[in-house]
């Protein structure tokens, strides 16, 4: 067989393999949406869940997921911003920096269940936070920090060095150069990274089972006092998220319409991730246009 024929054959095989992969993944996505979307209704999205009868919704779980997401980001963004700035602007090439990078790499490769168990041990038991939204948010912050830090660092690195020189030439300190010139310039890509990380937090479950709990107590949405038991803002209440809910209804099987609930909730999760991806792109472009002259 000559080389040309082999080339044609290889092309064919590669095409076939990619087709199989696309079909597999597309049918996967399609299945979730086709099964799930018909279950999505206003009632389903807002009603509280029921554990022993059918007809429950996922309202509280959606709220909990979003609230947890906000808390996680409030905790995680400042730390990762600082850490990213240090790594990009101040870190010298020495053993200390090597250690730091190794630590971040290890943290990012830890299985989420291990991070969750650590959260359970430290926040739930040691600090007596109990199963609470705060424990969950702290565990997820740890889980998220390496990803966000790396994103900030690479966004800052992408800003041309001449901008830093210009800042320093004006006589302002390095810190001011970074915070007033470099970070605004890198903001679109930092934001994109944050939104993509949000998608990940939105769907995370393993780290939450033993930190934010597996039950969603009823909330009183007219009570906005964050220290009250039933207030949605209370950070010491149990808060089952959407992803944990899917896991629970499937593994406990006390709910008669578990399949319907989980297919609906899965579709909501996927649409959420899709939304975060699209949002990241749009916001990135928009802000880039607004903040730069181009």
């Amino acid at each position, binding site marked *: 067989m000559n080389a040309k024929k082999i080339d044609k054959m290889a092309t064919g095989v590669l095409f076939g393999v*990619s087709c199989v992969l696309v079909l597999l993944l597309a049918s996967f996505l399609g299945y979730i949406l086709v099964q799930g979307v018909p279950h999505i209704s206003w009632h389903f999205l807002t009603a509280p869940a029921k554990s022993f009868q059918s007809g429950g919704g996922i309202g509280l779980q959606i709220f909990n997921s979003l609230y947890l997401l906000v808390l996680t980001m409030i905790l995680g963004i400042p730390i990762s911003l600082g*850490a990213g700035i240090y790594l990009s602007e101040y870190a010298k090439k020495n053993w200390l920096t090597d250690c730091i990078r190794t630590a971040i790499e290890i*943290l990012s490769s830890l*299985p989420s269940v291990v991070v969750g168990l650590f959260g359970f041990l430290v926040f739930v038991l040691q600090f007596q936070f109990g199963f609470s939204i705060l424990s969950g948010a702290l565990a997820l912050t740890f889980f998220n920090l390496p990803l966000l830090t790396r994103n900030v660092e690479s966004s800052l690195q992408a800003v041309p060095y001449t901008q830093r020189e210009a800042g320093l030439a004006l006589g302002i300190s390095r810190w001011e150069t970074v915070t007033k010139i470099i970070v605004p310039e890198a903001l679109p890509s930092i934001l994109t990274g944050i939104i993509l990380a949000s998608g990940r937090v939105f769907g995370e479950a393993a780290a939450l089972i033993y930190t934010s709990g597996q039950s969603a107590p009823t909330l009183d949405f007219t009570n906005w006092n964050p220290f009250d038991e039933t207030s949605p803002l209370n950070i010491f209440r149990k808060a089952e998220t959407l992803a944990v809910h*899917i896991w629970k209804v499937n593994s406990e099987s006390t709910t008669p319409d578990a399949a319907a609930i989980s297919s609906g909730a*899965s579709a909501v999760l996927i649409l959420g*991730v899709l939304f975060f991806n699209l949002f990241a792109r749009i916001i990135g472009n928009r802000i880039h246009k607004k903040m730069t002259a181009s």
Partner: protein
Amino acid sequence: MKTESIKKNLTTRSKKAKIERFGKLVSFICILIIIAVVVAIFYFVSSKGLATFFQNKVNVIDFIFGKDWQPSSVDQSGKPLVGALPMIAGSFIVTVLSAIVATPFAVGTAIFMVEVSPKRGANLLQPVIELLVGIPSVVYGFIGLSVIVPWIRGIFGGTGFGILAGAIILFIMILPTVTSMTVDALKSVPRHYREASLALGATRWQTTYKVVLRVATPGILTAVIFGMSRAFGEALAIQMVIGNSAVMPTGLLTPAATLTSVLTMGIGNTISGTLQNNVLWSLALVLLFMSLFFNLIMRMIAKKGAMN
């Protein structure tokens, strides 16, 4: 008077220098927080996990190679039955199986996207794969439970729960990640390598197979190992489909258990400080060491790859 103020100007820090010191300190504290978190995770998990061996006097060899997992009962000689081999084996089998199946698909698709049809790759495949990377693992588990388990039950009989179902779910789960990392590895091969090869008269496949793939091998290996470490640490999707019975796996179709599945099921049902609880933390410690191990391999590959 004038010399006084000059002297003062020269000997005290300027306002800018103070801001600079402050900023450096703040950003360094952020780094310290991250390091403290890593150290704390290691400290707490090992202090709990090692208690099995130091407080409960379980033999390490018995723990790793023991085949009986019944933490609440003891054998004839009074030793607790805490052999973790069934779970360790279960974790390894599902991980390796899923990686073996996923690699050809991922590499083939990545080659198609980068070398054969970059345009279609960028427009059609890239967004799909990016989206799938972000899909939560419980969704994969739910699909496994509602599609793959009944499907296996229909074809092979039995319950459908087991290693095969777990491996299939992990395969679909790691596929997008491994593919997108392989794409990055192929894209980082310099263009002039391809040009040189094509100029010598090689066909596209010869160029891909003999030049591009060789150069990208470290990157592709890293992608596969990364996928494996993901698969090894995955908890919920696996827990939903593997059947969760901690016995030595005898076939692909019998229910089994993995380290992560036993952990997620068990940790809430045991009392802190007891042997039953400590031994679960030992499983978490094994998981921690495995993720370190995968990390180490990736570093070694990166170092080797950097030398050529």
